[in-house]
């Protein structure tokens, strides 16, 4: 039987099925699911928010449960149809449907305690769904 879990005073590792955790390379993503040497990508929150007309500086904002103290990693998608989404982008979703037109949709700006949405031209109202991860890019 393959060893899958390795727990000592200085190690906590879980390997993928078929991989011996005792001999697995801790840097190989194909080998381990958890290693005490690296951080896994955890999710802080998910949800859906409506985006309607707004004016500076009153933008739609979504608060996190608490101030993270750093700017997190966020994925978002504009919902085009029920249960459908188009043009998934990191942090933003603006791609020209018509290359002769201005970009339309929205930008999503993550901050330490919330994210802000900046709606551009296009439909008068729509919704986006989002996932806020714990991942920290830098000290700001």
């Amino acid at each position, binding site marked *: *039987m393959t060893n*899958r*879990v390795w727990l000592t005073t200085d190690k906590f590792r*879980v390997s*993928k*099925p078929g991989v011996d955790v005792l001999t697995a390379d801790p*840097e*190989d*993503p*194909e080998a*381990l*699911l*958890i*290693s005490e040497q*690296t*951080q*896994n*990508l*955890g999710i802080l929150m998910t949800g859906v928010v409506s985006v309607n007309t707004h004016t*500076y*500086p009153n933008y739609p904002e979504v608060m996190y449960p608490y101030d993270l103290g750093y*700017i997190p*990693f*966020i994925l978002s998608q504009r919902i085009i149809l029920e249960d459908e989404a188009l043009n998934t*982008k*990191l*942090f*933003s979703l*603006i791609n020209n449907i018509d290359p002769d037109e*201005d*970009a339309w949709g929205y*930008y*999503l*700006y*993550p*901050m*330490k305690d919330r994210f*802000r949405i*900046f709606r*551009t031209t296009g439909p008068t109202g729509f919704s986006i769904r989002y996932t806020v991860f714990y*991942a*920290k*890019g*830098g*000290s*700001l």
Partner: protein
Amino acid sequence: MGLISGSTYGLRVSKAGVNALTASHEDLMFDSAALNTRILATGSIPYVLGDNTARSKITDQIVQLPTIDYEPAVFANPVYRLRTDGSPADPLGGQYFGASSLGAAPIIFEYLRWEYDDSNHRIIFNSMISRYEQMMQSWVSAHPVLHYIIFSNKSS
């Protein structure tokens, strides 16, 4: 942790109030039967104002990675600061925010690219943005930095 079902062994951690043995995937904080990703490196790189230009740049900045035999997935984005002198004033003036990576308002973003040096296991960043004083944007100030997160996914 142990025998999950049949002859399958593994480790499951469920959300509070949920039985880990019977929980569906969305109720598990961790499931050893599912793929996940880990973070290889994070950090920030400051943009430097170019000489006699209206551009701020990052030139051949190196992030050293562990010894890996694949090209990792990279996420990177500039971080700016909201102005404090807007009219009307932004209630969040002075706060940092992660800017879009696309080249449209309110950030004039020209390029951001990185390459993986597989011989030396490192990522090399290059980027250029328009100088903020000339952007005439209402809610951006201060020189940006580039935040990056490098994941253990094989992207190629």
